[in-house]
C-alpha cells in the first residue's frame, strides 16, 4: 500500500456568510482520507454537508459566500490544495480530477453534439491537434463507457440520448483526462433502478481498468455496498462514523448508521412498522403494530375498467402524432388494502394516478367508486385524494397551513362555519404529528417530511376512501421516509383507507402493498399478490427490476451472505 494517500481532508470546516444573516456552518471538522485506487463513499441525508465537502475539494464553492476555516487543510499527494494558485488549481482539476453530477442533462450543453463536447475535453486533456486522433480517442472513450454504436452517437445532441446514456457520456468526459480521482456526486439518483445498476457496474469496471480513486457521494447506504471500500457517514456537517465498508455496513457502531440501515425497508425484512430516527439522530425502535387488519374482502373501494390514455405530441411542423401513455387496463382495489404500482419513468404510472384522481380524463374506460353515489366531478374529491411526489411543490407557497387545510373543507361544503373547519384542520394536523402552532405558518418554514405530512393531512380532511400516493416518499430522506410510511400504515389501519401506492422503489412498495401491478411502457406486464410477485417473478422485466435493487451488502461479504 502506498504510504502517501492521494487525498487527505483534515479538519474541514466551511461556513456560508450572507450579508445581514448569521453565518451558516455547513461542514464542521470533517476528516477523511482517500487512498489511491480506492473508492470512498460519502454518505448522508440532505443537509449533511456531503456535497459541500466535495465542492471544497474541487475548490468550486462560491468564494464570495463560502469561507473555509484557517485550520482546514485539503492535501493532494501531501500538498495543501487550499494554497494552490487559481491557475495551478485549474491545471490540477483538468489533469487529475474528474467530476460527474446528478443531472447529466444539466451538465451537458444542449446546443452542441456529444462528439463536439467530448472531442473538446479530449483535445484539452491530450493536447492533440489532429482531428482524426481526437475522433479516434472520442470513439474509444464512448466504447469504453458502453455506448452502443459510438460512431452514430457522435452527431447526437444530449436530449436525443436517454438518461443513462447521458450519464455515460458524462463519465466519458470525466475519464478523458485519465484522472487519479473521480468525484461522483449522486450520479445515479435521477436514474431508474435498472439503469442505476448498469452505471454502478460501469463505474466499478472503469475503476479497475483505469486504476483511479473514486469519491462517491450518495444518500443511499444500500448503494455504498455495491462500490465502496471505505465509507464516511455524515450528519449535519459532522462525520458520525467511518471505516471499512465491510465493517460499517455489517456491524455499524453508531446509532445513526444503524438507523440509516434499518429504517429503509428491504425485500427480506418486512416489519409492520419501520424504525425511525429522532431529531438527535438516535434510533427509535419500531412500534409493534396493533391488531392485524381483517378487511372485508367483499367491499371494493375503487374499480378501474379498461382505462387508457394517449397524449398528442408535437411532430415536426404542423404534424401531430399521438403517444399511447397507457394501454387499456383494469383492476379493483378493496377497502383497506394497498395496491402497489411499480414502474420506471415513462411507464405510465403517474398518468394512471392522475386519471384516478380526476386530474386527467381517460380516453376510454371507466373509473368507478362502488359504495358511493354517481361520482360527479366534485363528488370525486371526497372519494379519492392524492399525495404528490414533491412536498415542496404540492403546497401553495402563498397559503398558510390553516388556509391549506381548510380550503378543501370549504370547497366540499364540510363544516358549517370557519371555526368548525379550523377545528377539523387542527384535529388532522395533530393526527399527522404536528400541532396548532403550525396553523399560521407558511409551507417554507417546514422540513420536507413535515410538509409531506401536511399534504397527507390536507387529503384526509375530506375523508376520502382511496388515497393515491404517487412517489410520495421518493423525494424524502430515508429517516423521514420511514416516518411517512409508518404514518400511512397507521392511518390505513385507523380509517380503513385504500391505498394506491405508486413508486419506482420496489422495496418501499413491497413494504406497503398487498397486491402489485408492474407497468412497463404503458402496459401491465405482471400482477398478483405482493409476496408471489416478489418471490416468483414471471415476467423477465420484473425479474430484471428485482435483480437491480441494491442489496446493501458489501462486495467482499456478498459470497459469504
Amino acid at each position, binding site marked *: 500500500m502506498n504510504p502517501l494517500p492521494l487525498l487527505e481532508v483534515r479538519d474541514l470546516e466551511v461556513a456560508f456568510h450572507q450579508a445581514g444573516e448569521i453565518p451558516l456552518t455547513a461542514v464542521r471538522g470533517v476528516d477523511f482520507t482517500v487512498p489511491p485506487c480506492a473508492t470512498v463513499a460519502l454518505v448522508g441525508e440532505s443537509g449533511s454537508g456531503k456535497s459541500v465537502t466535495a465542492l471544497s475539494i474541487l475548490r468550486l464553492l462560491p468564494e464570495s459566500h463560502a469561507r473555509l476555516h484557517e485550520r482546514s487543510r485539503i492535501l493532494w499527494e501531501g500538498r495543501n490544495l487550499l494554497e494552490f494558485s487559481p491557475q495551478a488549481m485549474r491545471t490540477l482539476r483538468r489533469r487529475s480530477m474528474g467530476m460527474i453530477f446528478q443531472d447529466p442533462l444539466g451538465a451537458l450543453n444542449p446546443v452542441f453534439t456529444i462528439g463536439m463536447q467530448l472531442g473538446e475535453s479530449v483535445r484539452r486533456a491530450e493536447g492533440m491537434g489532429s482531428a482524426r486522433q481526437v475522433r479516434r480517442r472520442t470513439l474509444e472513450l464512448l466504447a469504453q463507457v458502453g455506448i452502443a454504436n459510438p460512431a452514430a452517437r457522435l452527431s447526437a445532441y444530449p436530449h436525443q440520448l436517454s438518461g443513462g446514456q447521458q450519464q455515460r457520456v458524462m463519465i466519458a468526459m470525466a475519464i478523458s483526462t485519465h484522472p487519479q480521482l473521480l468525484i461522483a456526486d449522486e450520479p445515479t439518483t435521477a436514474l431508474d433502478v435498472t439503469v442505476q445498476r448498469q452505471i454502478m457496474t460501469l463505474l466499478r469496471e472503469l475503476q479497475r481498468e483505469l486504476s483511479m480513486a473514486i469519491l462517491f457521494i450518495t444518500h443511499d447506504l444500500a448503494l455504498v455496498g455495491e462500490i465502496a471500500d471505505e465509507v464516511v457517514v455524515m450528519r449535519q456537517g459532522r462525520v458520525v462514523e467511518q471505516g471499512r465498508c465491510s465493517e460499517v455496513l455489517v456491524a455499524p457502531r453508531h446509532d445513526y448508521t444503524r438507523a440509516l440501515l434499518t429504517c429503509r425497508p428491504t425485500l427480506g425484512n418486512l416489519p409492520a412498522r419501520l424504525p425511525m430516527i429522532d*431529531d438527535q439522530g438516535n434510533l427509535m425502535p419500531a412500534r409493534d403494530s396493533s391488531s392485524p387488519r381483517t378487511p372485508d374482502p367483499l367491499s371494493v373501494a375503487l374499480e378501474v375498467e379498461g382505462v387508457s390514455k394517449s397524449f398528442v405530441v408535437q411532430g415536426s411542423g404542423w404534424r401531430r402524432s399521438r403517444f399511447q401513455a397507457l394501454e387499456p387496463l383494469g383492476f379493483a382495489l378493496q377497502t383497506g388494502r394497498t395496491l402497489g404500482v411499480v414502474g420506471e419513468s415513462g411507464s405510465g404510472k403517474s398518468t394512471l394516478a392522475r386519471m384516478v384522481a*380526476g*386530474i386527467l380524463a381517460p380516453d376510454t374506460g371507466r373509473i368507478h367508486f362502488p359504495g358511493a353515489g354517481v361520482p360527479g366531478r366534485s363528488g*370525486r374529491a371526497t372519494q379519492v385524494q392524492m399525495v404528490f*411526489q414533491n412536498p415542496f411543490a*404540492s403546497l401553495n407557497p402563498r397559503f398558510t397551513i390553516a388556509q391549506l387545510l381548510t*380550503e378543501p373543507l370549504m*370547497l366540499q361544503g364540510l363544516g358549517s362555519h370557519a371555526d368548525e373547519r379550523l377545528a377539523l384542520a387542527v384535529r388532522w394536523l395533530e393526527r399527522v*404529528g404536528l400541532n396548532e402552532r403550525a396553523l399560521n405558518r407558511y409551507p417554507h418554514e417546514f422540513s420536507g417530511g413535515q410538509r409531506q405530512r401536511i399534504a397527507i393531512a390536507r387529503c384526509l380532511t375530506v375523508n376520502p376512501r382511496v388515497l393515491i400516493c404517487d412517489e410520495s416518499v421518493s423525494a424524502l430522506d430515508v429517516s423521514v421516509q420511514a416516518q411517512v410510511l409508518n404514518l400511512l400504515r397507521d392511518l390505513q389501519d385507523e380509517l380503513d383507507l385504500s391505498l394506491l401506492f405508486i413508486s419506482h422503489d420496489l422495496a418501499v412498495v413491497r413494504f406497503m402493498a398487498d397486491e402489485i401491478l408492474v407497468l412497463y411502457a404503458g402496459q401491465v406486464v405482471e400482477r398478483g399478490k405482493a409476496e408471489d410477485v416478489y418471490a416468483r417473478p414471471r415476467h423477465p422485466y420484473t425479474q430484471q427490476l428485482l435483480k437491480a435493487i441494491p442489496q446493501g451488502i458489501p462486495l467482499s461479504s456478498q459470497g459469504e451472505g
Partner: protein
Amino acid sequence: MTQIYSSRRSENAWSLALRRLWRDPVGRFSLGVVMCYLVLVGMVLAGWLGARWNDPVAVNYAPPTWCASVANRVTLPAGEAWDRSSVIPLYGWTDPLEPLWSEARAAAQRIQPEPVSYRLTLLFGADKWGRDVGQKVLKGTQTSVWVGLVAAFVATFIGTVLGALAGYYGRWVDDLLNGFYGVLTSIPYLLLVFAVAAVFQQKGVGTLILILGLTGWTGVFRLVRAEYLKHRTREYVLAAGALGASHGRRVWVHILPNVSHVILVQFSQNLVGFIKSEVILSFLGFGVPVSSVSWGSMLNEAQNELILGKWWQLGVTTVAMAIFVTALSLLTDALRDALDPRLNS
C-alpha cells in the same frame, strides 16, 4: 414526534421581499425617491401645491434668480386714466348711449386698478407667459406620473387577465389571444398610438391613459401567459384541482399570488415606459390639451424657447423627469432581485 419550529415570527413572501429590498442600499434609496415623488403628486392632486401654475406672476422669460443680477420686481403702471377729450366729436348729436357710458365711467372711477406687480426673476425662471416654471413643473409632474400610474394599472390589468386565460386554458383560447397579440405587436408602436388617438378624436388626460393602457399591455400578457403555462401543471395546482377547486379558483386564488411578483415588476417597468411615452406623445402634440401641463408639453414649449436662449424650462423639466425615471428604473431592478424566488434560499 417532536417538532422544531423556527422561533421567528411567520412571514409571508411579501414581507420577506420587502425586507430584502430594504437591505439593498440601491433599493432603499430609489424607493425613498419614488415615494417622495408620489407624496408630491398626492399633494398636487389635493391642491396644496402647484395650484397656481397657470397665473402669470413674472415678466415673460424671467430668468432664474440665481443667474440674474437685476432688481427682483417691476411694477407696471396701472391702466391709463379716462380722458374725455379723446372721445370722438359727435357734431351736435347726442350719444344715445351716454347714460350707459356715464354709468360705466362712474363704476370705473370707483375701482382703482391695483398696480400689477411682476417679478423679474423667479427661483426656476418663467415661461413665455410669465408663468412660474417651478409651479408648472409641480403640476406637470403630477399629470405625467398620474397618467403613467393609471395607464400602467389599465395595461397590467388587461395583460394579466388575458395572459392568465391564455396560459391557463391553452388550446383555442391561447391561439386566439396569441393571434390578437401577434397582430397588435406587428403594428409599429407610434403608428398604433396615433391610430388609437385618431379614433378617440379628443385630447385629454383620460384619452392619454386609454391610449397607453390599450396599447401597452402586450409585454405583461406575454410574461403572465408564460408564468401560467408553467404553473398550471405544478403539483399545488393539480392538488387544488383534485381537492375540488374550480378553474376560476385555481387561476385567481392559487396561481395569481404565485406570479404576482412578475406582475409587479412588469407594472413598474410599464410605469417607466408610459411616463416616457406620455412625454413623447405630448411632444408630438397628441398629449395633454393646452389647458393642462405635463412634462411632455413643457418640453414641447421648451424647444422654441431654447432657440431664444431660454433654457430653464427645459432644464428644470429634464432634471425632474430624469430623477424620477432613473429612481423608478433602479427600483424596478431592485424589486426584481428582491422578489425573484430563484434567489430565495
